[in-house]
């Protein structure tokens, strides 16, 4: 059912990208669009949902610029390809020095990145397959890209789930007008980033300030309960550990295929430093699992292989 997407590793590289747009999303997030030409444009035209980049959040060509020393990993939130260039979108939460530096880049400035990195989601072979996309917090952005690609490949039974702490901290652009809060457990076209692929979605917030109150996993379970027995969607998820684990358990319980996109602290992002390990089972009986690199074996893994801690 699931076709392995072979990433052509030669397409990766270090590139300079030009900032073409920088905008705020809610109180905590920003979205940035970078343009790449030439080899960079070609490499990113091949990028897969779930892949990420390592962004230099300083003037990396100036050796006296030392902070932040390491690059910052960001998931690709969307791409737009024209004949001679590729625009890549990212959505990021303003946290420390790296994301703050990035948030201050103005249009026309250059940003240095490595990418596209890692292995993305493995798409089902048939467009008939229904798919659920669960994104929580900064795990949402790769879901937007995945929705785009699914739509482009003819999947039209895709439903998104978006989790946030509150209305203001949603990692997406909310299209207020069209939102019917009394039908919040019904997929609706309310998030701009899902909307571009016409993917309806359900929102869940911890404080209930938008959509369903509570966890996005509970919301998706409620949604599944309302579907016919034959409904066996592929579940793709990205977000905090707790959410991913609950998603994996839900999928297991309902016998659904599930892929999760993990996050681990990364130094290199390209498989040389061994920072970003997570335990993966190497078979049904392997309870303990062994360490695999999230940056290069992942970040997307089959949920059944993940050993949760």
């Amino acid at each position, binding site marked *: 059912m699931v076709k392995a997407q072979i990433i052509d590793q030669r397409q*990766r*590289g*270090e590139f300079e990208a030009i900032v073409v747009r920088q905008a705020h999303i809610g109180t905590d997030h920003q979205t940035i669009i970078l343009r790449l030409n030439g080899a960079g444009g070609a490499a990113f035209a091949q990028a897969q949902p779930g892949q990420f980049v390592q962004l230099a959040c300083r003037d990396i060509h100036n*050796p006296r610029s*030392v902070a932040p020393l*390491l*690059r910052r990993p960001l998931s690709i939130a969307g791409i737009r390809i024209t004949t001679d260039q590729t625009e890549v979108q990212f959505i990021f939460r303003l946290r420390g020095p790296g994301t703050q530096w990035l948030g201050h880049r103005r249009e026309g400035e250059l940003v240095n990145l490595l990418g596209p990195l890692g292995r993305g989601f493995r798409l089902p072979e048939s467009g008939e397959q229904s798919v659920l996309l669960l994104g929580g917090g900064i795990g949402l952005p790769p879901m937007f890209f995945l929705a785009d690609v699914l739509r482009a490949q003819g999947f039209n039974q895709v439903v998104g789930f978006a989790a946030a702490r509150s209305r203001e901290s949603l990692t997406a652009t909310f299209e207020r007008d069209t939102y019917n809060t009394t039908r919040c457990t019904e997929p609706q076209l309310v998030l701009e980033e899902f909307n571009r692929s016409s993917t309806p979605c359900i929102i869940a917030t911890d404080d209930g300030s938008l959509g369903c109150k509570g966890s996005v996993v509970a919301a998706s379970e409620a949604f599944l309960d309302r579907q016919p027995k034959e409904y066996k969607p592929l579940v793709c998820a990205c977000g905090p550990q707790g959410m991913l684990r609950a998603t994996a358990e839900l999928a297991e319980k309902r016998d659904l295929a599930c892929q999760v996109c993990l996050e681990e602290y990364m130094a290199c992002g390209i498989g*040389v*430093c061994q920072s970003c390990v997570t335990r993966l089972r190497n078979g049904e009986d392997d309870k303990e699992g062994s360490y695999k690199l999230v940056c290069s074996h992942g970040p997307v893994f089959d949920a059944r292989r993940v050993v949760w801690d």
Partner: protein
Amino acid sequence: MSGTKQQPDLSTALGGVKPANPVMTASGTCGYAFELGDFVDLSRLGAFVTKSITLEPREGNKPQRTVETAAGMLNAIGLANIGLKRFCAETLPLLRQMNMPIFVNVAGRTQEDYLKVCERLAAEDGLAGLELNVSCPNVKEGGITFGTDPQVLGRLVAAVREVIGSMPLMVKLTPNVTDITVTARAAVDAGADVLSLVNTFTGMAIDAETRRCVLGNRTGGLSGPAIKPIALYMVHRVYTEVARSNGIALVGMGGIACATDALEFILAGASAVAVGTAVLARPAVLTEIIDGVAVYLQRHGYSRLQDIVGSLEA
């Protein structure tokens, strides 16, 4: 000093090994090389140093394994590696195809471990030499690092020399010592051909909010630009007090991030330099350093790299 504008001769000499230029990778920061291939032209490197290889495969420490610090980083990878057997079977054949000197970095928890690994590697074709990572706790001597006690270090190096015959041997000194010339001398007296320095400084990061150590292993090794002034000092001391008089070449490292940094180590006495943390941030820095060193030599009218090694004004 001559005013030549020809491409300067960047070749260097490390105990019989003759890298085409002085820029090498630092163990553990460049994987087994091919991972970097998309980001830097590996064929241009002076030499490649593998991550540490141990007798048995090692999982390594539990995450979080690295953390950024001010102008540096801590790592507690825990020598994760595939072990001697798989290394020889799977990795060595690939490394041999690279057209440059390859040093395999060897680590262990007992002297016997080291010896077994070194003996086996010495029997392999196509290796330029070995680098001994002696910053490992010696489980038979209460966990004291091999590299901090000159006696223990001397014994280890002499025993390795015994099993590897004339194979070039580089010993990587730990900076976590009172006087690095003492351990340097012990390594040289016991048969090291080349000294590389420095390995990382033991350090710690704390998350004040959770009141826990950030690293799964609690402590880790500090590397990156932060440590450069200390590393440079140690290289210079070892050069003037041990290496120069013994005809021993040094590989300098610790915080090198650009050609100027590399040149500082070379002026201080290093015949070659290794780059670690900076490669994690930008693999292409390796070739940029090679180019920058060449430009410097030309600008200052030198035709050979060798002419400036250790030429810091006294």
